[in-house]
């Protein structure tokens, strides 16, 4: 077996790093965990959004792992807001730029905690006032930065430190909040979901949102190996299965109307997705009738999504859940 010729000098590495054929908004050296879905999602977003942007970033993992003082991984103007006010800060940045006659697009970044729960009021205000901001929610389905507490985005029956399974409950009792419908109900021009397992689709949606004048919202499903309890090497696999089972519908809404969805070519049973993650391990106790019932419940949720969003594909489609990530020699991706 031959190995890669790694005998290139450190100067060549520096040269290469500076001359990568893509824009990288986040540099290496950030402190994200191994296989972090959010770090990947943030890089893909900045890559598609391009250099002429400013970011307001709510408190959360992304903020913490990219800015260990006095360093910063960001190669973009970036401002840390509080947990609850990324929407308000972004709105203010946008208003200030507008007053100066500048056209730099403002992005707001938040995790699911900063978006679904704590920052929701500021987000709603920003959307309602029609600011020209792209709000990106990195959805890893719990408060990972503070130690895996449940959020309103945590899926039903998942184990977190504040929704432990036991004699009373099988993990989180409540359902995952349908944030996209709530956001879309503000009648904004564009709201969409995306997944790190489908980078071309993700970048396409970012570019689309960037081109829209007005508030836009993208929710990106980003696995958290530590919080979900899976191997960091499996992050993409887990994210892909979330889409292929129907548990995370990849859809686009314009003015709250469904205008597109990624069809599922071969729907997979939800157990394929759940069994990879420790946060669902209590559902695999065959002697526990509650566990069996929850598995059936989660399958029903997936089936409901497939029916509600009409996700069932018909035959082969280059942009469905099996085709959208296909690769070609020479790296020619469709977006």
């Amino acid at each position: 077996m031959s190995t890669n010729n790694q005998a290139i000098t450190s100067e060549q590495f520096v040269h290469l790093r500076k001359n990568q054929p893509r824009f990288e908004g986040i540099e290496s050296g950030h402190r994200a965990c191994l296989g972090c879905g959010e770090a990947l999602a943030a890089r893909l977003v900045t890559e598609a959004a391009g250099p002429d942007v400013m970011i307001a970033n709510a408190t959360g993992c992304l903020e913490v792992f990219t800015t260990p003082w006095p360093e910063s991984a960001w190669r973009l103007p970036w401002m840390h807001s509080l947990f609850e006010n990324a929407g308000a800060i972004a709105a203010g940045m946008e208003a200030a730029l507008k007053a100066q006659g500048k056209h730099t697009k403002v992005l707001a970044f938040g995790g699911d905690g900063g978006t679904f729960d704590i920052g929701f009021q500021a987000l709603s205000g920003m959307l309602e006032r029609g600011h020209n901001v792209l709000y990106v929610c990195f959805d890893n389905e719990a408060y990972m930065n503070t130690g895996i507490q449940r959020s309103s985005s945590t899926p039903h029956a998942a184990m977190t430190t504040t929704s432990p399974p036991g004699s009373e409950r099988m993990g989180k009792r409540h359902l995952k909040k349908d944030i996209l419908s709530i956001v879309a109900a503000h009648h904004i021009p564009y709201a969409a979901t995306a997944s790190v397992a489908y980078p071309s689709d993700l970048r396409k949606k970012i570019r689309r949102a960037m081109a829209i004048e007005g508030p836009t919202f993208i929710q990106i499903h980003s696995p958290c190996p530590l919080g979900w309890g899976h191997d960091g090497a499996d992050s993409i696999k887990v994210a892909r299965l979330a889409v292929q089972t129907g548990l995370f519908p990849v859809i686009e809404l314009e003015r709250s109307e469904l205008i597109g969805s990624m069809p599922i070519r071969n729907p997979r049973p939800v157990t394929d997705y759940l069994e990879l993650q420790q946060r669902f391990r209590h559902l695999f106790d065959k002697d526990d009738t509650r566990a069996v019932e929850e598995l059936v419940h989660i399958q029903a949720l997936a089936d409901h999504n497939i029916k509600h969003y009409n996700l069932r594909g018909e035959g082969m489609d280059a942009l469905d859940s099996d085709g959208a990530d296909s690769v070609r020699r020479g790296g020619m991706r469709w977006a």
Partner: protein
Amino acid sequence: MKLTRGSFAFPGTTLGYKTGTWRIQRPEHAHRRAPCHAECPAGEDPQAYLALLDEGSPRDAWECLVSANPLPAITGRVCPHPCETGCNRGQYDEPLAIHSIERFLGDEAIAHDWPYPVTAAEANAPHVAVVGAGPAGLAAAYHLLRRGLQVTVFDETSEAGGTLFSIPDYRLPREIVRAEIRRLLETGISFKPNHKLGRDIHLQDLQQEYAAIFLGPGLMQSREWNVDGVTPTDLHEGLHLLKQWSDVSSLPEMKSAAVIGGGNTAIDIARVLKRNGVDTQIVIHSSLPDPEHPSEEDMRAIPREIDQALEEGIQIHDHHGVKRLILRGEKLTGIEIVRMRKLRNDKGRLHRVAFEGTESILHVDQVIPAIGQVIEPTGMENLLNGSSWLKVDEWGQLAGKDNIYAGGDAIEGNSGTVTEAVGNGRIAAQAIAAKLKQQELPAIDKSESIPFESLNMEYFEPAARAEQALLPVEERVGETEIESGLSGRQASREAKRCFACGNCLRCDNCWTLCPDSAVLKTEEVMVDGSYYVFDYDYCKGCGLCANECPSGYIRMLDE
């Protein structure tokens, strides 16, 4: 407003922190042999030339192909393509049509007259004699030339090609054989026709005159055949008829014939006879191959050829033997055949048992044995020592002979394909060149090829295999070639189906999906054929790239 020290940081400064120190595993590019490469008897790496074809460089693809096999237009037509049996894509949808691509590239090279990527040897280079201008001898000569040696090829006939001319035109048109061999000889191989070993040239003289000898004598003599000592007086055997057909395009008068034997010669002559209006049947001890259950008892002929023969209306009586010839005077009027199977006797040995009560009569006026060929020993008696094969080591060197090598059908254990002969020639040439230049011989790569399970199928889409157009049975007349080649468009489309097993597909997946931007894309292709390097200063060793590499080219190693 003045920003205080704690309120800002300079952009991109995390680069000062080397997250590579966290790592307990490291990703590495690990080339593994694609199954098509491991399976090819000629030593081709189809994955490599498919890549070049996919990148839009058919000429580079052809040069890559002929770096192993100088006769692709020929082997692309007649090889049983074990590469396709091995192809990992066969476990996904259908294997790559590698033989069609090989033929396409060979035909393109002839059509555009692309010169072989070799230069003539220097005048003072050692000189090697090659005896026999069949596929083994020609391949040996070409590979010797590639390694800077002078070569002279001797053949007893007036034309180079050897056994290739006994393959009928409907499978392998002789103008293709002639065109490819002419171009090959023009590279600087000296060819001496009408030189027969033991008549015009002698081993002892060759040994004195040349630095080394390669023998590719083939099996040019038919095995003897009779039924209880009886043969019809006008017996024609299969190989002889094929040669006659190839040389003068005529066959003896006959209305019906029974061909005895299950090898390619039997199938070939049966199909030639059929094309000449002869009602033809084949009688064979062994079994018709079942792709699902390959067995040692299967006919030796290429399954594709057997299928086409059946399509063309040739009846094959498998598990049958000839019990008796029915003669009217000296003229054959039929044969009596009987069902037979190989069974073990009480000593555990396999022997054939004929079953009483299963006899039947075939009314034929010719019986044509094609039960195999043997070496024609003239001039090599001392090497053979009474054996019917040349015995060689894995480099093709004759046991106990310092500078004599051999390859092709005449060596022991050979499967009798053109492709294997080409492979024998190439390997022997490598050994001869190393010996004459006093270089170390590299070990023959016997590494396991990469299994299907090591690939990631999420990144591929089903796509139909390119099929060569096949003449309908009613149009298969005369010498017309029944399969036509792929178009350039079909070929490059087909090349896109390749998974690049164990090699870099350059798909950007590792570069796109690394959460730590620790995979860097390079400007130039790296020596390992990839366009990526790992930046171990920042790689945390998560293994995501290895999991998501579609072609199994990245492996994780413990630090």
